[in-house]
């Protein structure tokens, strides 16, 4: 428990659990979003939120201390695996039982997998600003993908889930290879 608290696992798990419940309750809901003509399926918003939050525990907590630990790499690899499991489990209630009739509903899963991939790469390259970068990408995607004749929705809809999942796993491999970005000690 002592290791979990500074590693942000408890808070992140609690937020992800809350998002999972919200995703389950709103799995068939369409919400009115400003700047968009049509209503959006709630799982799209849940996908962005889960991708932004899930990788929070992977950032370095005690940069100097971690490098002295003999099993730091193993713990980090376990952490990446745990994050993937947590993220997918949190997203499952919103996607598994929702009808995927509209294009906006179909793109929720590939969008989630790609944003999660960006988040994993972000931990390695951008550091602690990663959740905000994922949010920025996700929130910008919404108005762009709902514009008539835009290529983003068509690309996401045409992207097989397996390919998106592979890209996400590739991002995880990159993070495992590079490790989290070193933050400046305060």
């Amino acid at each position: 428990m002592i290791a979990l608290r500074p590693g942000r696992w408890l808070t992140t798990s609690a937020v992800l659990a809350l998002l999972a419940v919200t995703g389950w309750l709103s799995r068939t809901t369409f919400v009115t979003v400003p700047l968009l003509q049509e209503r959006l399926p709630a799982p799209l918003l849940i996908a962005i939120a889960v991708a932004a939050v899930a990788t929070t525990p992977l950032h370095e907590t005690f940069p100097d201390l971690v490098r002295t630990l003999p099993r730091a790499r193993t713990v980090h690899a376990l952490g990446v695996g745990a994050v993937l499991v947590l993220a997918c489990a949190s997203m499952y209630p919103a996607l598994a039982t929702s009808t995927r009739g509209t294009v906006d509903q179909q793109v929720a899963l590939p969008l989630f997998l790609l944003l999660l991939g960006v988040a994993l790469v972000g931990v390695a390259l951008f550091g602690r600003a990663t959740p905000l970068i994922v949010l920025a990408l996700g929130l910008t995607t919404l108005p762009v993908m709902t514009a008539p004749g835009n290529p983003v929705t068509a690309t996401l809809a045409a992207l097989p889930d397996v390919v998106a999942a592979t890209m996400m796993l590739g991002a995880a491999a990159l993070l495992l290879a590079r490790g989290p970005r070193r933050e400046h000690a305060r």
Partner: protein
Amino acid sequence: MTAIRAWALRSSAGWLFGGLCVIVAAVIVSRSGWQWQGQWAVSWGAGTSIVLSPLLAGVVAFDVHRFLTPGLRLLTASAQRGARSVVALVVVLTVAAAVPWFAGMSTTSVRAAATGAPPLMTTWLVYVALGVAVLGAAASVGLLVGTLVPHLLAGPAAAALVYVGPILVLPLGLQGILSVGGATGPTYGMVPNPTVVAATLAVNLSLMALCSVAALGRLGLRPSFGKALPIALVIVLAVSLVALVSSDPRTRSLTGTTDVVCTGTSPETCGPTDASAVLEVASRDLEDASSRLTAAGFTFPDEYALDAPTMPADETRGLLFVDPTTLQGDHMSEWDRGLTLATPAACPEFYGDAVPVELLDAQAALSLWFVAALSTSEDIAPTDPDTVAAVSTLDALRACDSSALPDWDYATR
């Protein structure tokens, strides 16, 4: 100034500015059509605040969490000008977000002016004031969340709050809180409703002040006026929220004007003054089309009125349908042109409770025929059976007389 300069260098302002420039450009170019109406162009340009505000709140919370460490908070609280340092951080980040937002709105305004649809200066100034208030309020919410949540998730939490908050209050009739503009269609003949604008400004400004006071209090920087200011701000916020909810119509931020402009001669196209750019396009296209069709025996009304909420409809004028998003270069889409030509009168039946099925079916068939006939450069034969039936259909639609419609199965062939 020293604090401003220091935070400009140390904070995330540079990244925020660069990222938001890209986001503003991506959102603005994602749709077209707004350049044909000044009000829509300003609203669309200002609408990027719907993405910018949450990100600004998130970055402010992130930087507050990152820089205002417990040690620094103690130092700030004991410093004579501690509050100024915290406010300087928020100001720097707000300016970094406001500049791309303002540049985006100015770009759409200039583009609309170049198309011949410049926005009204009063409308433009209203959106500038609303935008500044909204971004300030979003930054203050970020400051408060950053001081309350001692966690890396403070940034995403603030961003989520500012993004989801306006969505959650929409059903209550509350628009314009933490976001401004974002029209996705033309609002011909409409100007901002002064009551709603004043209430929206008051809500956002009081929210900004309240969050700032609460955050500074949390940091141990309690202002000298005690509890009087927070109480006054809560009262102002409550009163302005009530004023915003009770505005009539409560969710309409725009109100209609009666100024009308007409262009062209044969036929003349009329509409609200801020629709003059699309009226000119329509007038040219309808003139070309009607000159070809008149030679084949068609008789069109002398005037078409734009199908807009502020335009009175009557039987002596045709209805003009122009969707700016489908304008191809400087021409109407063939479907809009066909539908307009096939609607030579705004029949009262169109606005009644019962659906005038026969009139609408005839209008649809005639519209299809016009699209097909005008898509070729060949002359239209006046004696062709379809041409004869089309002429009779147009005459019946002009008279709003369903009993005079010929038995014509063009649409179902």
